[in-house]
């Protein structure tokens, strides 16, 4: 669906990637890592200085308008709606642009308006709306034409938790129906829940692109086991653990699941102490990124 061949532009340097149709890719990285540049290259708003970009098999800069029939984009800071018009008027404009018939338009509009909740202020001029209200309407607008490819750059900014959940649900439905999704976000929960693939950018370089589970295993294989126990403190020095600590009757163990499994640790401990409760925590995407940041010198 989207291919980059040795693409360089601004901070992005020599990025090559192939995003297959129907996948949901989360693009993560610190501010200034090149996420927005990547998205603008993918939709044809930027031309690469070096390399080639293909979106749906076409050069997006030359075929931008043609691709617009199958692709929708949202960039934070680029207004989607005319602020002097009402929300509904803006959607009616988009109905003309995408040549959607009235019979098709009304159910789609009504579904989006009800779910995002902008039906309550559909006749209010956009300039009178709060950031959150405006964002709900903007996200509804990019979903109106049921795009095959959806590019979202920091879409969740300004949304409350309820709206974020609705938004995630709608996106997940659309991805299940075959839509390809590229999304950048600082909210790891968004990325973690919606995307099956992750792309990590750091200062314009692609540190990782692939399956979410692979990323976890590669960069954050550390699990944390917290055990509530009774009995004498066991000797753990011989186990391949990263670290462990005691606090009264609580034992915390940090270990690399590539070297030792939780079952192996418990098997050993259960012979020596009486275990009352066990909790094993996997790191979240946020911890993975922090770990990558910490390790970037070694990568």
């Amino acid at each position: 669906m989207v291919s980059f061949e040795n693409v360089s532009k601004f901070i992005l340097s020599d990025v090559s990637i192939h995003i297959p149709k129907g996948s949901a890719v989360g693009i993560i990285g610190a501010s200034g890592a090149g996420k927005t540049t990547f998205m603008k290259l993918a939709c044809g708003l930027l031309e690469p200085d070096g390399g080639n970009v293909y979106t749906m098999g076409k050069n997006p800069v030359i075929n931008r308008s043609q691709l617009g029939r199958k692709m929708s984009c949202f960039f934070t800071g680029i207004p989607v709606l005319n602020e002097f018009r009402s929300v509904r008027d803006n959607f009616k404009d988009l109905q003309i642009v995408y040549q959607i018939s009235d019979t098709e338009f009304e159910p789609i509009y009504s579904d989006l308006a009800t779910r995002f909740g902008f039906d309550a202020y559909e006749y209010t001029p956009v300039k009178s709306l709060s950031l959150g209200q405006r964002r709900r309407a903007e996200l509804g607008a990019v979903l109106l034409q049921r795009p095959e490819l959806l590019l979202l750059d920091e879409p969740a900014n300004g949304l409350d938790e309820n709206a974020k959940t609705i938004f995630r649900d709608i996106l997940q439905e659309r991805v299940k129906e075959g839509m390809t999704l590229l999304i950048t976000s600082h909210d790891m929960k968004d990325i973690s829940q919606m995307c099956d693939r992750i792309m990590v950018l750091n200062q314009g370089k692609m540190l990782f692109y692939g399956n979410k589970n692979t990323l976890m295993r590669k960069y954050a294989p550390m699990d944390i086991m917290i055990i509530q126990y009774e009995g004498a403190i066991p000797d753990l020095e011989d186990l391949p653990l990263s670290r462990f600590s005691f606090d009264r009757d609580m034992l915390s163990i940090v270990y690399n699941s590539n070297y030792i499994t939780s079952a192996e640790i418990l098997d050993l401990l259960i012979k020596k102490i009486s275990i009352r409760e066990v909790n094993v925590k996997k790191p979240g995407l946020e911890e993975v990124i922090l770990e990558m940041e910490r390790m970037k010198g070694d990568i």
Partner: protein
Amino acid sequence: MLKPYLAFAKKNFLNRSAYRFNHFIGIVNTLLRIFIFWCIYDALYGSRTEVDGITMAMVTTNFVLSIGMDAMFSIDDYYLSGRISNGSIANELLLPISFKGRMLFENLGNSMFQLVFHFVPALIVAALTVGFLPPVSLPMFLLFLISTILGYGVLWTISFAMQMFAFWLINVWSMVTIKNVFINVLSGSMIPLWFMPEWLKPVLDVLPFSSIYFTPVQIYLGQLTYGEIAYKCGIQGFWIVVIWLFGNLLWSRGKKKLVVQGG
């Protein structure tokens, strides 16, 4: 293929009717301008029936039609610059519709509204008050209509080309002001080109400004032969093509600037 553009023209036409007070004030403004011009020329003519062969009725007809056409054409000179300054141009470029086509047809929708609900009522009021000459003949009136459409084309392309500078300047207010001064003075709407110095007339004849209002008015008044009409309409067409090409060159460069520099 034209369907979305015609839909935008229709939508703009209908949207205009929502702002009734603004529309009413617009008609008052046009009538005031006509009345002020009539007072000025009435004072200048005094008791004379004609100056250099130009009668007061001809002058009145010139400014009534010119001011009426100006109100009818109603071109939004800030269509592009507004979108560049708030950044929404990037979003517009991603839509599966020609930005320039939408720009033209939205304006046509406005102009059609202005024609029906502004130009015609203002003309009726002007006819009943200051008065103006009727067209010399039906063929000349039809040619006047054709030339008026071409005049609109010249004015729209001038505005289009000038707006393209917004890619570099962002704010085109000063350029719009300069353009309007040139149009007001050199198009014959404020000072009929009959009264311009003899040495200047041949220059003005070939400049695009006189093509906007003065050529249609001359045809309306029957001052041109069919051969001259063909020549003048040819000049109108020439300027539409040349300015359109120039505007498109700027448009391409402007878009290139956006995709290369990112803004």
